[in-house]
């Protein structure tokens, strides 16, 4: 009986584990669907169709802003990629601890 309960508990626990990590995948098709729905809902902030080619930040400080009729659709991974300062795995290099003194409290000039 205990073995049976134990087995069930193991199965239960293994089955439960995916639920907390959350759906992490890239479901582009679904993204497209949502964007398409957005396009049909009047405010015209989103449009469906092919992925965004570029998205350039706008510097319009101090002026009025608006969402235009042909804004955004992006399912790409333009910023995804390898290579960064923190990705140290596999380098085989020892990391030398460094003592860093913090700066003062954050403040804007």
């Amino acid at each position, binding site marked *: 009986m*205990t073995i049976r*309960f*134990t087995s069930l*508990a193991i199965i239960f*626990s293994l089955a*439960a584990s995916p639920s*907390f*990590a959350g*759906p*992490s*995948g*890239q*479901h582009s098709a*679904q*993204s497209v*669907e*949502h*964007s398409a*729905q*957005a396009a*049909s*809902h*009047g*405010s015209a*902030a*989103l*449009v469906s*169709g*092919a992925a*965004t080619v*570029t*998205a*350039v*930040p706008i*510097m*319009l400080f101090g002026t009025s*802003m608006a969402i*235009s*009729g*042909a*804004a*955004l*659709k*992006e*399912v*790409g991974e*333009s*910023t*995804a*990629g390898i*290579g*960064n*300062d*923190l990705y140290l*795995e596999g380098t085989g290099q020892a990391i030398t601890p460094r003592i*860093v003194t*913090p700066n003062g*409290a*954050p403040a*804007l000039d």
Partner: protein
Amino acid sequence: MKRLLLIMCIALAGTLPSLAWAGSSEAGKSLLPAADVAAFSNRVQQDLAARGANVAIVARMGRDPSVLPPGVQYTHVSFWVYSQITRADGSTGRGYQVYNLYQKDDDQTRSHLVQDSPADFFAGAHRLDAGIIIPDIRLQKKLLKVIASPTYRALHNPRYSVLANPNTSQFQNCTEHTLDVVMASVYNTRDVPQIKANIAAHFQPQPIKLGGAKRVLASIASQALTTNDHGAKVATATFGSIARFMRSNKLASEIYRITPDKVTRF
């Protein structure tokens, strides 16, 4: 021994759902109607534009709040940047581009940086409820420079942990990356040890109550739930802790919550 194993497994099954706030998920299957998601994402965009926000920090509720630990409301945070968008067909328009750190689907211990749209962002929402921080205009300018520079990617650590310790660079989640970018902008640096030293000195992460057994069992169940980068107590960056940090240091101009029918100040 068998009884002990039984108890452990039941504990594992029973307690892990309470950690169900990973939430850095990319357009997962939504429980909500797509039309509602689309309408809400447009509402948030228009609200931000009406306030003149070039850069905002936006959080979504990707899980049922009842399963989130005390002090945690939102599960995913990203930067929204007002942008000139050019589509594949050549048409252009203006709107918000969303800069995310997402947990990978095929390996939950890894993350990648992904840009998507507001509708994509809310596609995985459990509830249409967004937490918003509009940084001070001076900080917005600094953030724009960092986000548009190689520093933004350089600050990404693909080793993902739901409960990443923001004081260290061992693991990272979406909120920690957001915090790192904010700190890089405030202090005009891309030096990770300096950023971490400043976070440790000035930022108060959200404590997460986890008993010893739960910590052990969680990391057994998934490496994405590791707490190896923490000491005796577990604390991580959250939307709420970033909001408190920015408010107390006068780095934010507005912090509020928006739902389909109302806007509430935090």
